[in-house]
């Protein structure tokens, strides 16, 4: 499979990159690590006339300690994240999640910004042009039917990145810029919950930084991921748990799930279940039930929705107990 010809633009300054994005808005794709975009371009899922290579933009690389917490440039590799001493110390949950992404070689290329912006995935979408053509194009690309929920008009492609559930638990914010302005949004508000139009990002905008607030530093945590092979694969269901303790009690517990909905989601109502008069095991089970109810997996990936939802329950319980035992 080859990629349809395009013009490659490699600016050295962020301002040039943003001006280029504005100029070719709607007909340009941003290339960071390329580990999601290039395979998709080979499958003709994207056929832009221009590709913006942001590899040379120093302003959006690296991990910086600030007064408010930590600032991570969007073009920071996952390899750099998993090896950052500062992140290992202060935000171990993010490091744990980053370590499970794909394989070590892919993490040398893939970036945190790319992981946050990762396209949603579906068995009927991540296929070659001829495959999609012979089965009938779907809502997400070129068609108007859904093979997953026949008769439906909503796209259910699953959001399948590993670091966003950890970032959600850590209450991360992202900075989004265009040529004339910059805005900062919580990660929660970035995703729409729609499989096709899955993120709130205008065609002339670029995700430039990710901020981890100081208030979320030193939370313990655990990340549990279901996949078929022990490496390389995307998650088919996964859960992140962040926990802050005080005198042995749970002061704050946050849980987020991924790969089972069109967006990574924080599980609501968790805090009301902690520290009630029940055993820790029982509490973990009730929280797991909440997480399983938040998951709405459909037939978008290789394993059945029933199994993936059950795994969310099992993994949530295990992850809560594991975070509690630390």
């Amino acid at each position, binding site marked *: 499979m080859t990629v349809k010809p395009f013009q490659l633009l490699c600016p050295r300054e962020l301002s040039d990159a943003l001006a280029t994005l504005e100029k070719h808005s709607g007909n340009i794709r941003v290339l960071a690590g390329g580990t999601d975009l290039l395979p998709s371009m080979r499958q003709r899922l994207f056929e832009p006339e221009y590709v913006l290579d942001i590899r040379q933009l120093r302003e959006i690389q690296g991990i910086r300690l600030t007064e408010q917490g930590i600032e991570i440039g969007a073009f920071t590799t996952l390899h750099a994240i998993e090896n950052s001493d500062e992140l290992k110390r202060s935000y171990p949950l993010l490091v744990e999640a980053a370590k499970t992404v794909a394989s070590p*070689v892919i993490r040398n290329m893939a970036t945190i910004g790319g992981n946050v912006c990762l396209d949603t995935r579906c068995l009927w979408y991540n296929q070659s042009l001829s495959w999609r053509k012979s089965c009938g194009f779907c809502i997400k690309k070129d068609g108007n039917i859904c093979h997953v929920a026949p008769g439906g008009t909503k796209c259910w492609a699953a959001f399948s990145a590993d670091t966003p559930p950890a970032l959600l638990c850590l209450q991360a914010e992202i900075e989004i810029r265009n040529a004339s302005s910059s805005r900062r949004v919580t990660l929660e508000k970035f995703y729409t919950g729609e499989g096709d139009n899955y993120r709130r990002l205008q065609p002339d905008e670029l995700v430039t930084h990710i901020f981890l607030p100081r208030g979320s530093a030193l939370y313990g945590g655990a990340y549990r991921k279901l996949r078929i092979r022990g490496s390389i694969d995307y998650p088919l269901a996964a859960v992140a748990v962040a926990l802050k303790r005080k005198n042995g009690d749970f002061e704050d517990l946050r849980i987020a799930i991924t790969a089972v909905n069109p967006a990574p989601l924080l599980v609501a109502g968790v805090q009301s279940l902690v520290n009630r008069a029940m055993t820790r095991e029982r509490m973990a089970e009730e929280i797991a039930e909440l997480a399983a109810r938040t998951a709405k997996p459909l037939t978008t990936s290789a394993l059945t929705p029933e199994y993936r939802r059950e795994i969310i329950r099992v993994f949530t319980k295990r992850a809560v107990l594991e975070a509690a035992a630390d």
Partner: protein
Amino acid sequence: MTKQLVALRVNRRLHELAIESSWLLLDTLREQLQLTGSKRGCDDSSCGACTVLVDGIPMLACTLLAASCEGREITTIEGVTEHGALAAIQKAYGDWGGAQCGFCTPGFIMTVKHLLATTPKPSEEKIREALSSNLCRCTGYSQMYEAIKAAVEAEQKGLAGDEKNAPSRT
């Protein structure tokens, strides 16, 4: 689409090539430079057969644009030999049967080369973690562990290339 001139540094030699922006590094290496050691396995970045070193870091040549690699040092399996002789890891792979059908081997060697460059004495766990980037359809992983451990030992004793270090072939 018009072609552009790109200067690619591959295996310590500079090549000026007229290529299209959309060409992948793997195609450029194999078809323009006839460096066919790097293999196209899965074509969707899930097997590691096309692994090359870019500025010393293993990356997938099927998921990199050749034009994005201008100014960076690319090393393929063809550039692994040392002074015309097999590198310790290449020899160990041969001695220990680390290669079966051989298709995945160039990718594995590049991954292992980086492992040994950054971790001269890797633990079993480190070796397994590094190898998790590459897929061997013959499933010949055990021999690869043996080969890597032998290469590490050979490097340390300065015996790289020495016949005595090879397993007996009886």
